[in-house]
């Protein structure tokens, strides 16, 4: 084995700090000197775009903003792009949160979306109803009778004083034209699919983190009309819709980080096959 065994052993046992360090350096470098890697647009993203683009002025989009700060880097850009697109179409937004941390993040989200720049008025064109507990039974209640479940918004304004909430009757699903779910929680999307897409046959789009996409593919496209695949999907949507934002900036970093991981994956496998791992 001799020299080969030595190199193989080294490659198979590279220290963790080395590849973490190189990933960080590579991504930091590309932040300053972007290479502009191409962003091919997937069908999953095209379907999300088509669902939003098909909405008419005055239509209502129901949104569960269920992501937390850990996934903000790729969830927020996707949501900003979809919201800007929806607002450009004159679509009204009803925002709820199935994650405890999410309501705190709505403020910074809407600062980036700037609905007021398009003449949107809070209460008339968009509302933020805050966090709701209860999982799937709560989703069913929200789509059944939202005003029966939610009596005040996140700022504790009674929903009876919000004109947009008066447009939502019973069942609420009949007044909703599109459901959009942003979450990093595995069971959340499936619960919403059962309640919104299967029970009420509502058009359904979602953005989830990349690792959740394989679990959702069985529902796509028959129940889940479109999927934004995390940061990559967000960058694709920004590219497609023309509402360029943070995801396009991050896409080079994501590609570069992935390339570094791929190189280490190859090196690790070479090391594996050069040592006794390959022989066994």
């Amino acid at each position: 084995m001799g020299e080969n065994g030595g190199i193989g052993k080294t490659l198979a046992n590279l220290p963790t700090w080395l590849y973490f360090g190189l990933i960080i350096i590579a991504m930091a470098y590309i932040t300053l000197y972007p290479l502009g890697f191409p962003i091919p647009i997937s069908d999953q993203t095209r379907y999300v775009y088509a669902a939003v683009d098909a909405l008419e002025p005055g239509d209502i989009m129901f949104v569960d903003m269920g992501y937390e700060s850990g996934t903000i880097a790729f969830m927020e850009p996707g949501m900003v792009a979809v919201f800007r697109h929806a607002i450009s179409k004159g679509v009204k937004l009803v925002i709820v949160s199935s994650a405890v941390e999410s309501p705190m993040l709505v403020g910074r989200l809407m600062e980036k979306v700037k609905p007021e720049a398009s003449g949107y008025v809070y209460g008339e064109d968009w509302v933020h109803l805050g966090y709701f507990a209860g999982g799937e039974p709560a989703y069913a209640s929200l789509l059944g009778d939202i005003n029966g479940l939610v009596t005040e918004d996140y700022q504790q304004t009674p929903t009876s004083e919000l004109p947009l909430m008066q447009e939502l009757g019973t069942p609420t699903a009949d007044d909703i034209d599109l459901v959009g779910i942003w979450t990093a929680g595995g069971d959340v999307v499936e619960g919403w699919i059962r309640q919104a897409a299967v029970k009420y046959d509502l058009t359904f789009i979602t953005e989830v983190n990349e690792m959740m996409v394989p679990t959702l593919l069985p529902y796509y496209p028959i129940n889940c009309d479109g999927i934004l695949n995390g940061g990559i999907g967000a960058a694709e949507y920004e590219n497609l819709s023309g509402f360029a934002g943070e995801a396009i900036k991050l896409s080079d970093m994501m590609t570069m980080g992935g390339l570094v991981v791929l190189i280490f994956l190859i090196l690790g496998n070479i090391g594996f096959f050069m040592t006794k791992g390959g022989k066994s």
Partner: protein
Amino acid sequence: MADVIGLWISAILTIMITTLAWKDTPVSKTAEHIYLGVITANSIVMAWGNIDSIGIQKIMSGQFLYIIPVILGIMAYARYSKENFWIYRYPIALVVGIGVGTAMSGLVGGSVIDQIKSSFWNLNVPGDIGASLNNLIMVVTLVSAMMYFIFTIKATRSPIAIKLSTFGRYAMMAAFGYSFANTIATRINQYAGRIAFLMLEWLQLG
């Protein structure tokens, strides 16, 4: 001023947690515990907000039926008493029952019938050989992956069935590889956001 302080706290905590790439240190642990503390505090506030708006306020306004969920909620705390643990089972049974009942309403349609319907692919898409080939791969993959889980095939020793079953195993391994690659992509994306924050917002290098 508050924005600047927030920016610095955020940057310092990001760097502290990044030291985990080297090894688990008191610095990374401190950042981790600060995060957990903030989230726990926020969760308690949000939970109380729910109890207040959906429970207490409704009871105070004369809707006395809302006392039932409040009592059920209190019963859940019996979990912490060895003698009264049995009381805790009632609210949990109710929550599980409602959850399962609600999920069942869409389970058969969404997770069984619709998925079977969507597995019927057209093997001859006119004018699109790529789509036809793709659909053929989907059909073969589906059938072979299902064959892998039909354990009586091993007993029959049919060579075709065994080859299909083996192909099914490789197809599943490819799917698991796709899932693993997506997991890596998620982690990279999460950290890409922090690098962009450090470089562009904190250090303002871009």
